[in-house]
């Protein structure tokens, strides 16, 4: 093959790859008041949810059971190993969290912050936020809203259920949540990814 057809072929392939796929730009529309979506994990007052969980952080691995209780004005969360050793107890509400007990080995503020924030995302009702924007893409409706503390969130909603949340504050500080429902009101499985501290929590409903 002479040099010219080879260059032409390469140029054609690169042009095809670069320009043939038209980017799908989302058109954001403002919605007032907050979005028509509810928290991924819905618990009635006094109800509990239990998840078998695996937590990986900085190459350490903890496994056990997460128990989440709706205690009226706040949520109580406990994480205990399969053999009964407790890792932590904490209270979570919309303003933040309070650690009631934490095993010394994992008592690190960045880790507890990340766990609490991740849990807030599945427990908090995003419908309370005013001034959200939404757009549609394929089967998803994507809602975006901003928190007062600088976090920006996108909710990917399919058939009225949140299946993915992306949250970012700085470029590197991202939280992802994926939820699978299996035709029930509460997610059957949830995956949290926190890039900042390389945390991954995988939870499967018990």
């Amino acid at each position: 093959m002479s040099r010219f057809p080879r260059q032409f072929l390469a140029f054609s392939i690169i042009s095809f790859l670069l320009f043939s796929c038209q980017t799908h730009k989302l058109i954001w529309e403002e919605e007032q008041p907050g979005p028509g979506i509810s928290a991924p994990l819905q618990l009635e007052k006094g109800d509990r949810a239990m998840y078998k969980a695996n937590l990986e952080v900085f190459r350490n691995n903890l496994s056990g059971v997460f128990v989440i209780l709706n205690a009226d004005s706040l949520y109580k969360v406990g994480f205990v190993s399969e053999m009964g050793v407790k890792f932590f107890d904490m209270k979570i509400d919309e303003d933040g969290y309070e650690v009631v007990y934490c095993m010394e080995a994992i008592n690190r503020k960045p880790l507890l912050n990340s766990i609490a924030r991740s849990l807030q995302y599945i427990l908090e009702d995003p419908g309370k936020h005013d001034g959200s924007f939404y757009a549609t893409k394929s089967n998803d409706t994507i809602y975006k809203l901003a928190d007062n503390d600088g976090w920006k969130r996108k909710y990917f909603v399919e058939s009225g259920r949140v299946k993915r949340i992306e949250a970012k504050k700085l470029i590197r500080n991202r939280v992802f949540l994926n939820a699978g429902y299996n035709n029930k009101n509460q997610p059957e499985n949830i995956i949290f990814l926190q890039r900042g501290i390389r945390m991954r929590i995988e939870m499967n409903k018990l």
Partner: protein
Amino acid sequence: MKTFFALLICFLYVTAYSQSDFRPVSDIETVGSKLDNMAKSLNTIQSDFHQEKYMDFLDVTLESKGKFWFQKENSLRWQYTEPYNYIVIVNDGVVQISDDGRNQEFQVKGNKIFEQVNNIIVASMSGDVIDNDDFDVKLFENDEYFLVKLKPLKKDISKVIHEMEMYFDKSSLHISKIIMNEPNNDYTLIRYTNRKINEPIPSSVFSL
């Protein structure tokens, strides 16, 4: 009829009272040597277990079930079958864990808490608990059980375990249940059933 009910209530009261009416063992040396002899005669144990973890903060009890294998000197397989599949094997100082097919391995020696918990489980199953320098040991009895209460003397353990109660069946001297009380009113209760003593265990049981 009234008398019948009165007698029934008396019977139930006495039964319930005798279950909890533990008194200090007067002849500690004799009971100690009985437990010690039993421990020496044990080579293997296989048992089912039922675990209850009470979490006071959440007012909830987590229940799980499984099977347990122990072989002298220090081989242990602790396998949960309900409500999840989770296996812990301790063999030659190495811990292997299988969590729903996800496997990991580490040395017991690198993990202080695990080392202590492992020692306690092995000691409790073999009855070798009286001569333990890491705990303040007290011995009680009622009609059914010998109760050994262990209070950790080491700070790192006492942060996790406030007190352990081990119930040994008086007739067989085998352990019947363990209660691990934690400092924050939580506890873990483990009951052992369907025990098989000194039956051979294939070596494959102690590896994943």
